[in-house]
């Protein structure tokens, strides 16, 4: 128990419900409990899954059982393969791409990693999908991880999304196998299925490893590092898997033979198993080398492969194939030995292909699959002549090719990003049009005098949305109103994990300048900047589907008079309070140590922080560019002046004329530089400043999530305490107080579930929001930067015009 809690990544200590299930399962097994911790392990690995299993078991009969027989193999192979893939492609853009060819591999492995899951699951479907899913799932998962941790997130989604699909597939499969009556053959169909699936999976996995080794020598150590984890996990997961299978054998007769068949073998190897277990500890490092070593042993392996007795082949292979395969065979499970067998042909194939193509990836992977299917069709007549089986390769071949063909255009589209981006933009624009609302902030106007003066902006809204009373309306708002709106929104929506777009910061210095009423360029610049920032701020708000629905937003846009926003002054008591709050928040943030359960969040948080840093750096740079450009424009102006003077002093008339022309050109250049500086400021610097603020908000939403988590944890701790008191009271035998405590416990239990739900909700919202934010960011950046570059081009065009006009003048100097 202690070890398992150490290992289990998510903090899900709700072991009560689990125990019930556990005892049920444990009841089914008696002959081969390896260790008692196994059952607990199982629970910790997939604590959230019990409801799933139930659903699965109920689902199969509901889904068309008769249909399955008609067109079984193609259907079930196609579904799991294509389904995860299509969902994958949706998620693909977010995954990190190391290189194009490997990209395809990621796709395929991920894809395939899912399909063997399905296949394997289907065999064990009635047992417990989850247990088998984990051991099979985890290694393949981590293989994919080598290429980009990101893919894990999509994978998770895939898993979630495909639960029903899997269930259906599982049902189908079990139907198929159970309908086929003679056990040995039946067994083989099942095993064949797995074989095929596993083959493709291991195929691609080993292909990956080969690829890694051949392409860059630095990766393997890293990869092997990665491998250690899944294997450790796997090792501890394996026993529960095995355990879980035993009840299945008891209930589902279809597996009986298989079980018996296998049990003879494992029992013999049981003594060896202990060694192998210990072997695992050291073997981890070797693991990666081993499959490669196996490739060299290819001719030896080839022979046993042909033999129709899978278990024997498994043993043969396990002797040669290295600790990985050993580990598999050590398990009293047929699939694993089967898998070991199937690795052999795949190894052979990949090595053969690799030696042939030698690094031409695109060819390579198609080749692999071509051969894989050939291999299968060879295997199947040899072993089995059931009607479903020959259909399998044919079904898998198109699906694989479909996968590759899907992957290809996708990577191609990544290359053509530049071309696509415009279209994409338009597309999203259209999509965005459903919030058909446009807001402009105009006519900043100074109201009042002295230190009480403030700027008022005209906020004009145009929208056909029925939720507003008019199509067009205009209100006057002052800056603090904008701030007030943000306060309200962030109070309301922040804790729920929404990213509330932040308004521009208060600037005492800038505003004071404006208030003092100096009509210089810097204060005009300030006001203009702020106006633009406010406009963008409002646009962001109304383009947010949930925020637009907020009554405060509507009120802000529509109502003539708005109650004065309080507490937005920087130097007021409220401002002071806010500062204190912020400080305490910061302290509590430091004290909360959340052991992050979600890799996605961890990565996102890191990403956000690094992006924040980079943006800050960039912002400083752009600001300095602006400063330098302004300097340049000033200097150009003074140079133009002195050139004009020089021209007037010059006594050669032609030269004098040319010089004064030059002065004119320089004058224009000055204007150009000035414009460019403005352009820099508004299009580029402001964009970045916006995103620095927005990233702050994103972080805020992460913090809110953390707070929700903390609340949940606190509640749990309190519950625990109450329970302890209950136990104590029970011990002390004080029934009067016991009742009270029991009530309290019930209360806390409600709270805990409530908070947990809260946390889950916030997590989901944050996730959705961040995805949305990313999308929005990409679009926004593209648009703005293209805009900016266009401006740059225009100014260059202007430059050309000026100099072209000057050239004949210069040439005219005699």
């Amino acid at each position, binding site marked *: 128990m202690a070890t398992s809690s150490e290992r289990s990544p998510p903090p899900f200590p709700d072991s009560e419900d689990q125990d019930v299930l556990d005892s049920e399962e444990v009841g089914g097994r008696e002959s081969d409990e390896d260790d008692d911790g196994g059952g607990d392990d199982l629970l910790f690995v997939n604590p959230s899954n019990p409801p799933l299993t139930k659903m699965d078991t109920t689902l199969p009969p509901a889904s068309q059982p008769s249909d399955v027989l008609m067109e079984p193999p193609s259907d079930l192979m196609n579904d799991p393969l294509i389904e995860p893939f299509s969902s994958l492609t949706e998620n693909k853009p977010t995954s990190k791409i190391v290189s194009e060819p490997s990209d395809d591999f990621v796709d395929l492995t991920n894809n395939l990693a899912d399909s063997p899951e399905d296949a394997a699951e289907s065999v064990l479907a009635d047992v417990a999908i989850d247990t088998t899913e984990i051991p099979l799932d985890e290694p393949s998962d981590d293989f994919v991880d080598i290429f980009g941790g990101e893919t894990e997130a999509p994978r998770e989604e895939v898993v979630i999304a495909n639960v029903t699909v899997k269930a259906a597939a599982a049902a189908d499969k079990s139907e198929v196998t159970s309908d086929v009556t003679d056990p040995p053959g039946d067994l083989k169909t099942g095993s064949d299925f797995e074989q095929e699936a596993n083959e493709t999976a291991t195929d691609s996995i080993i292909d990956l490893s080969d690829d890694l080794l051949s392409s860059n020598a630095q990766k393997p150590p890293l990869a092997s590092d990665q491998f250690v984890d899944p294997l450790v996990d796997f090792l501890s997961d394996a026993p529960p898997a095995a355990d879980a299978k035993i009840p299945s054998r008891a209930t589902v007769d279809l597996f009986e033979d298989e079980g018996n068949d296998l049990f003879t073998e494992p029992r013999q190897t049981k003594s060896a198993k202990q060694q192998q277990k210990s072997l695992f500890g050291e073997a981890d490092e070797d693991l990666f080398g081993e499959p490669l070593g196996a490739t060299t042993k290819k001719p030896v392996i080839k022979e046993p492969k042909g033999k129709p007795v899978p278990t024997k082949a498994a043993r043969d292979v396990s002797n040669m194939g290295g600790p990985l395969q050993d580990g598999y065979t050590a398990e009293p499970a047929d699939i694993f030995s089967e898998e070991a067998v199937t690795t052999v042909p795949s190894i052979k194939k990949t090595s053969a292909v690799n030696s042939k193509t030698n690094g031409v990836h695109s060819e390579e992977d198609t080749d692999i699959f071509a051969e894989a299917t050939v291999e299968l069709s060879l295997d199947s007549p040899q072993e089995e002549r059931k009607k479903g089986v020959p259909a399998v390769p044919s079904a898998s071949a198109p699906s694989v090719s479909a996968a590759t063909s899907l992957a290809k255009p996708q990577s191609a589209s990544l290359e053509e990003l530049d071309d696509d981006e415009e279209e994409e933009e338009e597309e999203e624009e259209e999509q965005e049009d459903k919030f058909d609302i446009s807001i402009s902030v105009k006519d900043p106007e100074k109201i009042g005098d002295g230190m009480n003066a403030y700027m008022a902006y005209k906020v004009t809204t145009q929208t056909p949305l029925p939720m507003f009373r008019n199509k067009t309306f205009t209100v006057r708002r002052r800056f603090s109103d904008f701030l007030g709106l943000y306060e309200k929104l962030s109070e309301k929506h922040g804790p729920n994990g929404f990213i509330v777009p932040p308004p521009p910061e208060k600037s005492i210095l800038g505003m004071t300048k404006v208030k003092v009423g100096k009509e210089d360029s810097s204060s005009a610049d300030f006001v203009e900047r702020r106006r633009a920032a406010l406009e963008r701020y409002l646009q962001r708000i109304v383009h947010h589907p949930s925020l637009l629905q907020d009554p405060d937003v509507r009120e802000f846009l529509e109502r003539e008079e708005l109650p004065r926003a309080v507490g937005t002054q920087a130097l007021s008591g409220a401002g002071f309070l806010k500062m204190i709050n912020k400080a305490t928040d910061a302290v509590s943030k430091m004290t909360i140590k959340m052991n992050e359960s979600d890799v996605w969040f961890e990565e996102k948080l890191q*990403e956000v922080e690094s992006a924040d840093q980079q943006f800050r750096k960039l912002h400083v740079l752009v600001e300095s560019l602006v400063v330098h450009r302004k300097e340049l424009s000033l*200097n150009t102006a003074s140079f133009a002046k002195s050139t004009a003077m020089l021209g007037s002093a010059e006594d050669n008339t032609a*030269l004098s004329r040319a010089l004064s022309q030059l002065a004119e050109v320089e004058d224009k250049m000055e204007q150009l530089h000035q414009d460019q500086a403005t352009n820099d400021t508004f299009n580029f610097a402001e964009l970045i400043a916006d995103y620095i603020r927005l990233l702050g908000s994103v972080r805020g939403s992460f913090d809110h999530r953390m707070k929700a988590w903390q609340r949940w944890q606190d509640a749990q701790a309190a519950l625990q305490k109450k329970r302890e008191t209950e136990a104590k009271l029970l011990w002390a035998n004080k029934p009067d107080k016991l009742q009270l405590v029991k009530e309290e416990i019930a209360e806390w239990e409600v709270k805990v579930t409530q908070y947990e739900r809260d946390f889950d909700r916030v997590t989901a919202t944050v996730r959705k929001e961040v995805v949305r934010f990313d999308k929005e960011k990409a679009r926004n950046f593209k648009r703005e930067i293209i805009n900016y570059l266009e401006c740059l081009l225009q100014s260059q065009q202007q430059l050309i015009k000026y100099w072209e006009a000057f050239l004949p003048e210069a040439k005219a100097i005699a």
Partner: protein
Amino acid sequence: MRSCYGLICGCGALWDVVSALPLQPRAVNVDLQTDATLQVDISDALSERDKVKFTVHTKSTLPNFKQNEFSVVRQHEEFIWLHDSFVENEEYAGYIIPPAPPRPDFDASREKLQKLGEGEGSMTKEEFTKMKQELEAEYLAIFKKTVAMHEVFLCRVAAHPVLRKDLNFHVFLEYNQDLSVRGKNKKEKLEDFFKNVVKSADGVLVAGVKDVDDFFEHEKTFLLEYHNRVKDASAKSDRMIRSHKNAADDINRIASSLYTLGTQDSTDLCKFFLKVSELFEKTRKIESRVAADEDLKLADLLKYYLRESQAAKDLLYRRSRALVDYENANKALDKARAKNRDVLQAETSQQLCCHKFEKISESAKQELIDFKTRRVAAFRKNLVELAELELKHAKVTMT
């Protein structure tokens, strides 16, 4: 910290950076290279820790030289010595002495390079190599410019009808050992300083004297004004170019920052960032090229004419001085005649002064007219080139 001029010319990539620098003396001398009897150029240059060694290559058919073609190694100090010897020679008072080349100043760029070396650990590898390349390019540009300045000086002297016959010049060209000229010591520097003070005070006094000749009167006012204007313009252009370079640097840093952003970002935005970074990188290159070209075509021209007009002013000063001397001699002669004492001596001195003044006036007139045509031609050439380069760069940016 050794770099070879010859090597620079051969090196393709670097050549690209500095290709804007003209190999042949720029601007100033359109009519200089026509004379085949004496051709001087700097074929090679070596930069060492604190000095630059120029290989002066001469090709001549003049009888004073032992050979037709020869090379010597000279340092900056020796150029200065040559210039000073011209200035100090009374014979040449009537000529515009070609301005001495400015001291090679690599300190700034060297310092930067050193700083870069220190900061190596704090930046990424790409950043470092990029910065290094840039600094090297900058260094090379300065180096080439220095060489060009020295060459221009020699060419001007070689093309001058009188100065080319100067003995010191011949020694400078031919003597294949170290001339063992030393830099001025403190005392000499102090002397120079006093001389300058006296000269400028004198210049003010002399300037007040009304000239007899309208041409010179006009030239004087023109040059005075012109000098000031050029000085102003040159300072301004310098500043302009500096800020242009700063802007280019900023763009460069933005590009690299965008690049890191692109590599860090995991969304599909990363490609976009990389692309934009590339674009900025290109813009940066062009902008810095524009700045470099402006520097060359505009600032250097102005700077050269700043010095040249100073030389012309000096000439005018010498002439005015001579005029004042002549007038004083006249007065002295009158006085002597009145007192009837030392008449002969006064007469000779008056004659001398008169002669000197006339000689100076005559040659000065020619020189100033030359100066004007030269200047006009140079401005024309450079401005045309400037305009063309600006156009070219702007068009490159467009594509």
